[in-house]
């Protein structure tokens, strides 16, 4: 008849007391299950939605900070010096982020629009909407003032056919994500980036249309030879380059005839006409044009005292100056795990340069998840409130019970039972009824939690200021060629669809742990009372 046995006998033979305590734990268990269920559902809805979003962090200049700093400079020379050395994002900074094992890759995308060469040797993929002549005739006029005569010159603007997307790193987010996939060949390497090699990747439809495969070359013009270009002394050879096709890709963004504005799409708006190449390749391809333009202005301004820029050889476009002249505006870092995004930003925030900013771009996500956060907060609050109340109630019940069981304790102590065993018996008695009460509450609580959880979320959304309509932005015909925003648009609907109150084995486990915790804490005060008991006093009083 050890203390565990005694505990079981006491629980099974004092049924009215046991039933009352089971009922108490049952009620506590239901409230805790509802609270935990709702709280976990809110948290997991956020996590699941976050996991569906791209794990991107943007790094760039904080222009507000730059302007605010410039406003504080009163000296004009100092201000001019500041603007001459305008803050820039350095390639080394981006490279250092890539050393972090959480970072998968980085995009420092530049977008250019190029033309077919003068022989039109590369046809673009037609959307079947506009006639070619219509594309060219609808472009309107392009006007400029002649640098020498100062007369206004105009000519018909020619629409570019190809969108050139370039990057400073070999693994682009689009390809890492699976949005674009290499079907043949490979992506460009770091060595090709460093050398500015004339390599490119084209779409499978563009390749098929022109009968081009990996290892072939295509000819593209960085601009078309018109009056404006001719004034710099440029020739067709200066504008045209041959690029080796090193890879052919497929994509998951076809523009179908049912897309809005399909009839008005230009060729460069078709992802089939998108061409990927390193940013340095762009620089190298444009080099003859850039050099002639530079030389033209250097000669025109001559030894004008304000012509310092053109007199400095470091400013002349050249292969040697390429590294220093490559401009990085915005960087998008792709992380391996969307759940690391906030931590990553927090980790680096303190060590960024003065005008740089790192952003998790989760303002919208945070705004939309506010009802879930509020719900989770209230649910957790209820859980803690119930737990604290449960501890108080169970402590009081145990302490009062102790008073009525003084005699029994005295007997046990007088026959040599240790006080720890007496406390152990009380703990086990409470633990038995707690386990029974909580087990019953798991069944009922699961049913109630689901219903209450959904009702309170509906109420929470209705009473919050977040609306479903305002957060969704629909873009033109479904493909925005200039879009370099890699963040994922989410809606309140996305979040709500992931919200499901489920009483998982983990929650059930937590409830039992919490229940035993309540019992353990509730036994502490009565234990002190037992430790102070003197068997002589108890038994002499009885007798």
């Amino acid at each position, binding site marked *: 008849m050890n203390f565990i046995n005694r505990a079981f006998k006491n629980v099974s033979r004092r049924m009215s007391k046991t039933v009352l305590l089971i009922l108490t734990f049952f009620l506590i268990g239901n409230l805790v299950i509802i609270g935990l269920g709702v709280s976990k559902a809110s948290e997991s809805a956020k996590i699941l939605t976050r996991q569906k979003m791209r794990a991107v962090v943007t790094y760039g200049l904080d222009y507000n900070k730059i302007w605010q700093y410039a406003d504080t400079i009163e000296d004009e020379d100092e201000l001019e010096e500041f603007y001459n050395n305008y803050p820039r994002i350095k390639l080394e900074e981006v490279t250092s982020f890539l050393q972090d094992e959480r970072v998968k890759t980085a995009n420092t995308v530049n977008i250019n629009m190029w033309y077919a060469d003068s022989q039109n040797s590369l046809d673009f993929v037609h959307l079947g909407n506009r006639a070619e002549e219509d594309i060219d005739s609808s472009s309107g006029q392009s006007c400029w003032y002649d640098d020498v005569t100062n007369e206004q010159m105009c000519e018909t603007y020619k629409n570019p056919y190809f969108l050139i997307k370039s990057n400073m790193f070999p693994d682009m987010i689009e390809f890492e994500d699976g949005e674009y996939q290499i079907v043949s060949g490979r992506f460009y390497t770091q060595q090709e980036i460093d050398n500015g090699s004339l390599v490119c990747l084209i779409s499978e439809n563009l390749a098929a249309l022109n009968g081009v495969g990996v290892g072939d070359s295509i000819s593209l013009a960085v601009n078309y030879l018109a009056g404006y270009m001719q004034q710099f002394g440029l020739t067709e050879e200066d504008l045209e380059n041959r690029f080796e096709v090193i890879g052919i890709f497929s994509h998951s963004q076809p523009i179908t005839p049912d897309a809005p504005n399909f009839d008005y799409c230009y060729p460069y708006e078709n992802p089939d006409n998108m061409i990927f190449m390193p940013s340095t390749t762009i620089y190298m391809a444009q080099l003859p044009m850039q050099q002639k333009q530079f030389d033209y202005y250097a000669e025109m301004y001559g030894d004008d005292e304000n012509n310092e820029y053109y007199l400095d050889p470091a400013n002349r476009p050249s292969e040697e100056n390429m590294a220093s002249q490559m401009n990085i505006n915005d960087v998008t870092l792709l992380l391996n795990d969307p759940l690391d995004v906030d931590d990553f930003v927090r980790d680096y925030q303190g060590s960024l340069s003065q005008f740089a900013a790192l952003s998790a771009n989760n303002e919208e996500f945070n705004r939309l998840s506010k009802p879930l956060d509020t719900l989770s907060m209230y649910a957790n609050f209820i859980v803690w409130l119930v737990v604290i109340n449960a501890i108080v109630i169970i402590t009081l019940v145990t302490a009062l019970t102790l008073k009525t069981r003084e*005699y029994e304790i005295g*007997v046990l102590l007088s*026959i*040599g039972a240790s006080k720890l065993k007496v406390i152990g018996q009380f703990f086990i008695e409470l633990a038995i009824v707690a386990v029974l009460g909580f087990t019953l509450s798991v069944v009922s609580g699961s049913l109630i939690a689901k219903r209450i959880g959904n009702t309170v979320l509906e109420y929470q959304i209705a009473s919050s200021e977040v609306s479903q309509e305002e957060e969704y932005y629909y873009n033109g015909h479904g493909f925005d060629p200039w879009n370099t925003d890699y963040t994922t648009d989410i809606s309140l609907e996305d979040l709500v669809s992931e919200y499901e109150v489920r009483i998982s084995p983990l929650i059930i486990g937590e409830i039992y742990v919490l229940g035993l915790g309540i019992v353990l804490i509730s036994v502490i005060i009565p234990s002190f009372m037992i430790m102070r008991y*003197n*068997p002589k006093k108890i038994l*002499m009083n*009885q007798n």
Partner: protein
Amino acid sequence: MTEILRLENINYSYIDGGYERQILKDLSYSFEAGKFYTILGPSGSGKTTLLSLVAGLDTAKSGKIYFNGKDIDEIGLHKFRRNAISIVFQQFNLISYLTAVENVMLAMSETDNEIPKDRKNVAYNLLERFGIVRSKADRMVNQLSGGEQQRVAIARSLASNVDLIFADEPTGNLDTATEKEIISIFKELAHDFGKTIIVVTHSDTVSAMSDQRVLLKDGKLTKIK
């Protein structure tokens, strides 16, 4: 006869209404094994206090108590209570949510003394020896009469296989016939089982049946011849 319990210069006092009240004064006495003692004395003479000291429920202000020649403070009061003594109270002090047999088994589980493995049968046999048949042994104790409950209490005191059994007014709540029965059980325990029985009582019937009557008066114990 062998000495089992010796009290040496025991003093015990407590504060009552601001005055120190001396209950036991340099009390010394020796109890022999296998004898049935009764301690008599007027109300307030300190009989129950003395019992609580020798039972290890309380400690004296000064003096020593030796069990089989060992200081009980050195043995440890908790261990002493668990392995050396049993107490039978006027109110029986049984656990109400246990059956009679479970109450007896309770004492077995708390002692370090050697107890036969088949504890339940040993408990049944003990109860049967004191007139509690199996059908009653399986009843909750509050379903038994006062005399039966006291027998259960005595059976429990024997279950832990101790040498010393104390009893505080064990027949105070019983009728005369039952009182006699209980006392003969105590005598049997002393003479047939070699247990030392020390009973605190007011009852002349009880004291008359004991082997040795001891009077507690003015804080000291004296043999009554």
